[in-house]
């Protein structure tokens, strides 16, 4: 346990001056900011205040300028944007050791390779949770500043549940990204895979079978595909995500433990 804690603190030192952290926070914050703008426009003129894709989406999902719609938008941002941003975080954390050329320094030590990877997974989870908390706080501040209608503890708690379950689902889905980072020895391969998965998630989701494609499920669960699609989710949808997470985690550990590190 002592070794594990030391490995986590080493991971904190490694990321001490990382500019990437702020890039991810700023990129992720775009969701509540644009969500806020969306709400302001709707508040003043209803659907007529919107134009183009915004208007179609608002009509399709019966969005209103209230807390329910705004909090739902925040969850949807995690469900879709999380695949990209969390995938970016995992790609960076696991791929950087190869891009920085430091991977070989981690492989012949008295600490196990699994503990070093666990430290990275833990740092990844902390980073992702910090991202969603920061978005939530920013969203709440904006919501109160805009003076949205319909605030109630019940609305907040029910949306909070969806928000954090969506977060957990996305966190689980990115363990294979960690695998691709160490398999591809850098962050380009996993970033390519993230882009591919994001596109596939949209296409498969739109085809109506996203409930069995793990990377589509969080988006659907967060409500981005509407209530009808969300109703299609079943136990298997979630089991597949858990299995993906487990396979990704153990695949990453096994690969580093047993494959040749050239």
């Amino acid at each position, binding site marked *: 346990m002592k070794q594990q804690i030391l490995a986590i603190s080493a991971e904190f030192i490694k990321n001490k001056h990382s500019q990437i952290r702020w890039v991810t926070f700023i990129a992720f914050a775009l969701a509540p900011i644009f969500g806020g703008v969306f709400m302001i426009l709707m508040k003043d003129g209803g659907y007529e205040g919107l134009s183009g894709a915004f208007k179609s989406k608002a009509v399709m999902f019966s969005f209103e300028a209230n807390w329910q719609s705004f909090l739902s938008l925040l969850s949807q941002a995690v469900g879709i944007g999380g695949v990209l941003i969390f995938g970016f975080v995992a790609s960076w954390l696991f791929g950087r050791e190869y891009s920085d050329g430091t991977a070989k320094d981690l492989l*012949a030590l008295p600490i196990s390779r699994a503990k070093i990877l666990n430290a990275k997974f833990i740092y990844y989870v902390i980073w992702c949770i910090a991202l969603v908390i920061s978005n939530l706080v920013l969203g709440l501040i904006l919501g109160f500043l805009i003076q949205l209608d319909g605030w109630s503890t019940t609305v907040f708690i029910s949306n909070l549940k969806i928000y954090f379950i969506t977060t957990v689902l996305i966190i689980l889905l990115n363990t294979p990204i960690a695998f691709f980072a160490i398999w591809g020895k850098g962050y380009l391969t996993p970033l390519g895979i993230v882009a591919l998965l994001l596109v596939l998630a949209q296409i498969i989701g739109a085809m109506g079978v996203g409930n069995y494609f793990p990377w589509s499920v969080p988006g659907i669960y967060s409500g981005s595909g509407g209530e009808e699609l969300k109703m299609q989710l079943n136990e298997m949808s979630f089991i597949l995500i858990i299995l993906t997470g487990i396979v990704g985690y153990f695949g990453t550990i096994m690969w580093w433990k047993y494959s040749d590190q050239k």
Partner: protein
Amino acid sequence: MNQVTFIEDNMNIIQTKNLTKRYGDTIAVDNVSINVKQGEIYGFLGLNGAGKTTTIRLLLGLIKPDSGTCKLFEKEPKQATKIWNDVGYLVETPYSYPNLSVIENLEVIFKLRGLSDKSLIDEIIDQLKLTQYKNRKEKNLSLGNKQRLGLAKALIHKPKLLIIDEPINGLDPAGIVEIREFLKELAENHNTTIFLSSHILSEIAKLTSRIGIIHNGALIKEIKSSELHEQIIKKLCITTNNNEKAIKILNEKGFKCTTNNETIELLRDEAINSPEEIATTLVQHHIPPKKLYVFEEDLEHYFLRIIKE
């Protein structure tokens, strides 16, 4: 304090037996058997691509052999065992985290090695003369100082065995001398066993006690550095206007000669040690030498000759 390995006298610190590694049809390391004793500085010499780094990776368990065995401190070097408390290493280019300072880079390795004595960081920074750069980010260091940082990471825990790949790459002449003296001091005063690879024989000859030459993956020669001088070709070379007659006269005087193009070559010590006698003899027979010099093969020529044989 970390657990360390108990070392018996005359223990094989590194022992490989028929170590072999293939990549497809290419044999990167071919039946390499090496024994390195405690306190030895073993130089592993080879051209680029000869198999030096692959051998080092096998020693460190970064890759697995296709056949053969490898032991460190007479034990199989399994992952995450206490053996690694006694091993410091530097493979290929010494990279560190570019956005971290020298001290932060050392803190990372300090934690991963589970070290507890914080003074080790300052000590190694001081030993490798990095004090004035300790707060400088790695990306802003010179190549030589990056190399020093790599060595500092490998040595922070005072290992009993140091495995280093091309340790003088990127160093200026002053840096080369400094690192050479530092490594010598480690072996002499701290009984550290050092296994280092290089492609420059003249450099490792100054540092190592034994040299292994690897070529196309195979260990083709092992030699004590002290015996290296005896292996080097020395010959007396003479050019005259009448080489045929000169050879005849020298043969009559008991000097065995060979010819190489337009040059007469005498390989025996009695000729090499008395060029003035030979010159006098030739002059007395009216064949004054146009050229007469002792040729001594340099270490790089010796190395190239060995790998061509």
